[in-house]
């Protein structure tokens, strides 16, 4: 029983890491938007970099989700 409880608590704590990914994604998209509004003509050229940064950052958040799943089901 206690092991189960600890497992759920651990999964919850592991998911906190996704908050960091959320902050990072906000920074990426916010800064992209700020830059794009200042210089709209250069925005299109940086779109692949935006997607790359999005995927790299999102992956880190998802790593913590995987740890949560490992704690729940592993």
């Amino acid at each position, binding site marked *: 029983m206690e092991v189960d409880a600890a497992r759920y608590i651990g999964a919850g704590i592991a998911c906190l890491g996704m908050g960091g990914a959320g902050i990072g994604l906000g920074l990426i998209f916010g800064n992209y938007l700020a830059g794009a509004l200042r210089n709209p003509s250069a925005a299109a050229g940086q779109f*692949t970099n935006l*997607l790359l940064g*999005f*995927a790299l950052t999102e*992956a880190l958040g*998802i790593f913590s*989700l*995987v740890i949560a*799943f490992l704690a729940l089901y592993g």
Partner: protein
Amino acid sequence: MASEHGGNTLDPIHQFEIQNIYPMEIFGIDASFTNSALYMVLTLILSAGFLIFSMRGRALVPGRLQSVAELVYEFIANMVRQILGSEGMKFFPFVFTLFIFVLFANTLGLFPLPMVFTVTSALIVTFALAMLVMVVVVGYGLYKHGLGFFKLFLPDVPVILLPILVPIEIISFLSRPISLSLRLFANMLAGHVALKVFAGFIISLGSLGTLGILATVMPFAIGVALTALEFLVAFLQAFVFATLTCIYLRDAMHPSH
């Protein structure tokens, strides 16, 4: 999580189970034909079939299907040219194959097909792909530069910093296949689990009577939105995989930065 943990009906993990379709053994090694193998074969047939079928006309003014194939080709070709330069175009077939395989495997797992299985949601598959990339990177680096390839681990800094930086460079190089494979695997796993969890909400809400059935609109709407997001992620992760492959290959081509 779904209410009946471990049960078959509402278990979001059940979709990742490998099921045997045709059991067989080769020299005592279990080489059964599983649903994973089935969808790998399907991915191969569909991707090759799509590219061959769409390009069979080779019209100067492309039709609808041909322009899709040309769009994908140009997209990856531009990316490779941008990162590796025109002398790196010899790696284009390799990168394009990886991209198409991952893209089709990711996308195929999102369709409601019988025994559907996302090939890339198995860690061993993505790890094999990542190790293939690493073998190509190290092999080409050693072939092209010999021992000069190891200059990759010598950053251009004052000598006094080298004892700290060289181990960091080596560790970061060795963790590349892990992060490359785990990124793709985790994205696919998390996306599919999220879809199934919201689908499970619909079932558990629907059993609550009329009000519950009315409320199922919400998880259903989220499910639709998530499916759209998953298609984006499926494409994006294939693109990221191809881009990172290119970046690693660039290290093999120019190890001294």
